[in-house]
């Protein structure tokens, strides 16, 4: 039997990570507490798989099978378990605690946190040496590099398993030491926050900010298009998480960003954010 991957949380990142594995022929169990979310996730994974094929980002292998479940009970025999729930330490603590009590020793537990320190999350698990961070970028099935966050207690053996897993899905990982926001979020999130602040102050529109960052500074899409892709609610959560741990007021989400979230303009996934999206 092909080893199965368990992904916890069927939001934007959970479904994207599931698609990445399925596209590489690995069966996935996707777990979420909301049956309606799981129903939508099936459609999303199907569409994302076609997206990967369209862009030549899926190898020519039969896709892995997708199973959905509202319970983590089935994760015991998994190759690895990837946690991709919201960026709230309490939610991550709850699910990691539950899963850690079920899986066999030797099963790598991976958090897709964008910036909560791994050693902080390690307090929730029975075997801190088997916990590691893999920060996938959105969309995971298109972006070939990931940030691997090694906690102070993460073992060499776990790092070896991470390398094997990333090989299976054809991803390259860059390993960094544990710190709030690691490297990518610590640099990107305050930049997006400042870009939003600039738009809020009326210095420039979102498209002008993005065009300047792309045309003058070589950013692939501009920070505000990236923000819409990340999801503005997730960005706000991550900024608060960074502020709580680093203290620097620059990490506090600016009013313009908070206004968008309060208005339900969460980016691509809600149909509008800094830009409008159809279909």
């Amino acid at each position, binding site marked *: 039997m092909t080893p199965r991957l368990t992904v916890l949380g069927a939001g934007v990142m959970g479904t994207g990570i599931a698609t990445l594995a399925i596209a590489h022929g690995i069966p996935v169990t996707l777990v979420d507490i909301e049956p309606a979310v799981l129903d939508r996730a099936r459609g999303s994974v199907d*569409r994302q798989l*076609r*997206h990967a*094929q*369209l*862009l*030549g980002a899926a190898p020519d292998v039969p896709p892995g099978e997708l199973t959905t479940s509202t319970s983590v009970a089935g994760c015991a025999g998994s190759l690895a378990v990837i946690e991709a729930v919201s960026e709230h330490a309490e939610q991550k603590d709850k699910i990691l605690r539950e899963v850690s009590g079920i899986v066999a020793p030797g099963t790598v537990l991976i958090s897709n946190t964008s910036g909560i320190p791994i050693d902080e999350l390690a307090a929730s698990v029975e075997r801190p040496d088997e916990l590691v961070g893999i920060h996938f970028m959105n969309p995971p099935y*298109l972006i070939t590099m990931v940030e691997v966050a090694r906690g102070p207690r993460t073992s060499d053996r776990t790092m070896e398993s991470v390398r094997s897993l990333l090989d299976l899905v054809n991803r390259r990982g860059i390993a960094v030491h544990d710190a709030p926001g690691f490297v990518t979020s610590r640099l990107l999130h305050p930049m997006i926050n400042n870009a939003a602040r600039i738009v809020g102050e009326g210095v420039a529109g979102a498209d002008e900010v993005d065009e300047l960052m792309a045309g003058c500074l070589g950013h692939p*899409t501009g920070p505000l298009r990236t923000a819409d*892709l990340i999801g503005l609610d997730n960005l706000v959560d991550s900024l608060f998480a960074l502020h709580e741990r680093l203290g620097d007021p620059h990490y506090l989400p600016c009013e313009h960003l908070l206004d968008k979230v309060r208005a339900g303009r969460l980016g*691509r996934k809600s149909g509008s954010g800094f830009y409008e*999206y*159809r*279909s």
Partner: protein
Amino acid sequence: MTTDQAVDSVASTISSYLETKAGGPVAHDADLAAAGVLTSMVAMEIVVFLESTFGVSIVGRDLKLDNFRTVDSMVALVTRLRENPDNA
């Protein structure tokens, strides 16, 4: 409606959709990838738009970027899939 008229109508529906993406007129033979319109995200939006607008399903070997580089190539794809719905 003659076949030519049907093709014209498909072409104009597609180009008016693309004009909202490109922010300006789109020639039917313009290379949308070279123009920077056909980004990785927009490419999939176009697939979904064509499927929902023309009632076709684009799968398998038809799912390749070359089919979506110009209005002309999209019209050819939609026309073929409408004529042979089983030959996907």
